[in-house]
């Protein structure tokens, strides 16, 4: 392949070359000029599945390849800093690539996909009730929530929990990720940001919004939904107005979306607790303060005492609890059933980790972690089948000798070899005894 010729003959050779390369697990190209390296990357990028390519190098001759690939990694080497300057990520040694890809890359993808999906979800939940309200207020653009709530929802009440999730979340232990590269396949091909998952989140958001709005609607419509008023004066039943209606929906909303994140978080540090419960407490305290004082800078005093009135009503509390539970129910059920019927490799590892209570390390044999499931003949995100027999009986010991990752086929062959050896030893002992 000469860099200057772009006529049809070398184009034909490119096709054949690409076909051959796709059938190999590793291809070695020697004595390549920098431009040729970039051309190889371009060739792979343009192939049928349009894969995401990663190029790693340490010298100045790797720069064009690093720039061409989707992800370019430079190694701070003896050949200078050219590669590092042109790369997306720089590492000091080649061996760091493993942790960077398998651990950090995996974590970042999980975090960012959850961030994106959750953001759309919580805003769908936020705005859809407001949209539904227009059908009942003469399409006059009357807001359902007070201005303060509209402004602060995305800034103060629901921003910190997801921010922290996207910085700290670890759905699986680092060591297991390093040990089992096949887990990376669970997120291959942008699996968590594809249309089906996005549709699921959106439909969940719409469902939650409908539950929240119509739950409150049927409580308020043509009934005498009132407070009990026993804290202030006796024997009064004070009627609720439209801001109380909106505040009820908003309270259910904030608690629902925060609890959704609670259900999705797998790694609870003290900061998680602080941020999540703190956001909810902040919402309550803010509402009490906002409605507790006649603020002089406000033109309208429409929120005065609304939140407290709402909280002084028994039915309001009952409906808040009911609506939060009804909103979260389908997601919990879906999670549990999917985890039982069609677990991903990730989820199996999480189960195994829980079983062994964190004693899994980089050196535990692979086969012990992949217990097959009877129902799931297909595993999402990964391709091949594994028919390892119940491994718990065989593999609870750490394999101290092997410090390399072996493929499962190798592991199985190893097992068979060792069993044959043991059987032969037993036979020999028996024959010796006779």
């Amino acid at each position, binding site marked *: 392949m000469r860099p200057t010729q772009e006529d049809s003959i070398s184009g034909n050779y490119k096709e054949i070359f690409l076909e051959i390369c796709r059938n190999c697990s590793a291809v070695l190209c020697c004595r390549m000029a920098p431009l040729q390296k970039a051309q190889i990357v371009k060739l792979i990028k343009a192939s049928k599945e349009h894969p995401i390519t990663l190029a790693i190098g340490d010298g100045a001759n790797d720069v064009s390849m690093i720039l061409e690939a989707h992800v370019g990694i430079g190694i701070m080497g003896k050949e200078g800093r050219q590669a590092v300057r042109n790369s997306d990520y720089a590492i000091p040694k080649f061996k760091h690539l493993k942790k960077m890809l398998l651990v950090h890359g995996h974590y970042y993808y999980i975090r960012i996909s959850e961030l994106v999906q959750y953001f759309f979800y919580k805003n769908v939940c936020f705005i859809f009730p407001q949209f539904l309200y227009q059908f*009942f*207020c*003469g399409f*006059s*653009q*009357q*807001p359902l929530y007070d201005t303060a709530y509209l402004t602060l929802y995305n800034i103060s009440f629901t921003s910190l929990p997801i921010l922290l999730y996207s910085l*700290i979340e*670890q759905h699986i232990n680092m060591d297991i990720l390093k040990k089992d590269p096949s887990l990376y396949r669970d997120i291959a091909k942008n699996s968590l940001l594809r249309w089906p998952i996005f549709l699921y989140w959106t439909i969940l958001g719409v469902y939650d919004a409908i539950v929240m709005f119509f739950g409150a609607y049927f*409580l308020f*419509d*043509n*009934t*005498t*939904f*009132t407070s009990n008023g026993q804290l*202030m*004066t006796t*024997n009064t*039943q*004070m*009627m609720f*107005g*439209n801001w109380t*209606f*909106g505040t009820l929906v908003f309270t259910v909303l904030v608690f629902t979306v925060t609890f959704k994140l609670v*259900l999705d978080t*797998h*790694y*609870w*540090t*003290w*900061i998680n607790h602080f941020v999540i419960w703190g956001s909810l407490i902040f919402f309550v305290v803010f509402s009490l303060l906002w409605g507790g004082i006649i603020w002089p800078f406000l033109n*309208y*005093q429409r929120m*005065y005492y609304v939140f407290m*009135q709402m909280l002084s*009503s028994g*039915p309001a509390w*009952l409906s808040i609890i*009911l609506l939060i*539970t*009804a909103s979260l*129910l389908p997601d*919990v*059920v879906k*999670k*549990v*059933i999917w*985890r*039982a*019927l069609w677990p991903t490799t990730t989820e199996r590892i*999480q*189960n195994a980790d*829980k079983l062994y209570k964190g004693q899994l390390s980089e050196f535990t044999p692979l086969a012990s972690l992949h*217990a097959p*499931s*009877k*129902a799931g003949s297909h595993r999402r995100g990964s391709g091949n089948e594994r028919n390892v027999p*119940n491994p718990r009986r065989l593999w609870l010991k750490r394999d101290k000798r092997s410090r390399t990752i072996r493929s499962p086929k190798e592991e199985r062959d190893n097992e068979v070899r060792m069993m044959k050896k043991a059987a032969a030893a037993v036979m020999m002992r028996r024959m010796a005894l006779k």
Partner: protein
Amino acid sequence: MGKEEQELANRPDNTAFTQQRLPAWQPMLSAGIVIPGFVLIGLAFIGIGVALFITSRSIQVLEFDYTGVEQNSPCFNCTGQKVLNCVCNLDFSIDRPFTGTVFFYYGLSNYFQNFRKYSVSKDDSQLYGDITYFKSPSVTCSPYDYDSNNQPIVPCGSIANSMFNDTFKLNNINGSKVDLVPLDGKGIAWWTDYNIKYRNPSITPLKNAFNNTVKPIFWSKPAYELDTTDPANNGFINQDFLVWMRRAALPNFRKLYRRIDKGLPIGNYSLAISYNYPVLSFNGRKKVVFSNVSWMGGKNEFLGIAYLVIGSMCVFMSIVMLIVYAKFKFPEED
């Protein structure tokens, strides 16, 4: 030596936070937690739902539409144009006595108090008793801020202007005896509205504060004469006025009119209605509602039914999950 120091200076922090090694709790949504949890929640919800449903069933409600649309309705004569000061009588009887405090509501249908332009049309500073805003009402009140002679309207705005002005008297008919049932109008509005949010101007007599202003166009009496019998119920802190000013959330709503403290025994009743409020032009409806209340408020079957439905769904889901787990998970474990 310097180069080493420089390298060490560039080294990232090795704290638990920056190296993501913070101690953490790693919970998992496993069957052992979820299934019992669902069963508990389901049973609790069913219990609450049953209690709510039974309570709601025991609440009595009487509702009468008195708009007068049909020919045979008692208030049909009042629906004509140019009929002033019409009084119609609504007769009804009660078979089961209402025990405890009975709440007397008026209800409106197809009435959008939550319409945006309507709901911003008031001046909170005027209603707080600030005299300066008596002379220059806020521009949000327009077109109900100045009348045709350019006099400021107090209280301004369409919410105040459209205040409900039907009045009711309830008579208990005992053979030939006609007893007036006492209606209590104290404390029907929010305590905070009455005491803090709405204040009369601090000029006595109250009438003088309203010099050089006019009453709202639709009103028959000015604000300082809303209740001449009780000065604590006059001006902006009139209880009926406050109840009206708290805008309803939905187009079909009820507002509290009076309380009947001693309940309503069995018998025949006649409700004398001063029919003043026109609703037919926008296909609205007017009704009166008698209801007693319980710890959960008025009659509302939705809450009880919703709790029962969600509770049974929880129990059902837990059974489904148990089946799924039993079939697909348990045989594999030792």
